[in-house]
């Protein structure tokens, strides 16, 4: 593909060691070569992307985990706070969590390790 040095360097203008974190605490950048093509793969752990969550619910979950209150999330999404409250409740139920604090903890600290 004509990269000089690490293919990852095109992202930040400087070489990145294989597997080095590129900022998101739970994500890393990896270089993978398949059939001569070089791909960069952002690998993220601990996602709130359980298939059970709708896109709206996943979005609300990420925002809630960042510490936004329901009103702020509603303003951002153009919905009512009541809708957001319902979505948060559904997310917590689906993920078997008790509070939005637990949700934030799941996002930040979820590190389940390799599952066979």
């Amino acid at each position, binding site marked *: *593909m*004509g*990269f000089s040095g690490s*293919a990852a360097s*095109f*992202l*930040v*203008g*400087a070489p*990145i060691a294989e*597997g080095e*974190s*590129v*900022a*998101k*605490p*739970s*994500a*890393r*950048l*990896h270089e*993978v070569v*398949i*059939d001569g*093509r*070089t*791909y*960069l*793969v*952002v*690998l*993220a*752990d*601990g*996602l709130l*992307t359980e298939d059970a969550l709708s*896109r709206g619910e*996943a*979005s609300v979950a*990420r*925002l809630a985990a*960042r510490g936004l209150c329901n009103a702020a999330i509603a*303003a*951002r*999404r*153009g*919905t009512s706070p009541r809708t957001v409250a319902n979505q948060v409740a559904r997310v917590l139920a689906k993920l078997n969590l008790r509070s939005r604090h637990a949700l934030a903890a799941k996002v*930040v*600290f*979820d*590190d*389940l*390790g*390799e*599952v066979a």
Partner: protein
Amino acid sequence: MTLDSDTRRRIIEQLRGARGERPVPSGGHPSTGGVFAALLEGRARIVDCFDDGRRRFVVLEATPAGEPLSARERSVVLALAVELSNKVAALELSISQATASAHVASALRKLGVDRLTLLRALAVIADWLAPAELAA
């Protein structure tokens, strides 16, 4: 464009032992936003985005002759990244929803992805944005 299932399987296989870094409480990284910037500047494109049930893989490829996004296209993509709805994004940018949609469509064309793939990728990549950008 998305990868075929065999290529996906091989990527998952190659990264079997790999993982995201053990989380740290917070704090920026010197290269925060590097991936996002590369996408906006046309230096990279999203080839595919898929999950293996536990981890998400956002597959990127360098695009030496990529087309940078315009200022408006960057704005709407940033709005998507911080989870603004089209309606709110249009209000924030003082443009009509139709105009916002048009900017999104042209941004998607340059990035070479469909909207859902971009949203799924942004869910990972947007967390790399600096707090100031997220507050926008």
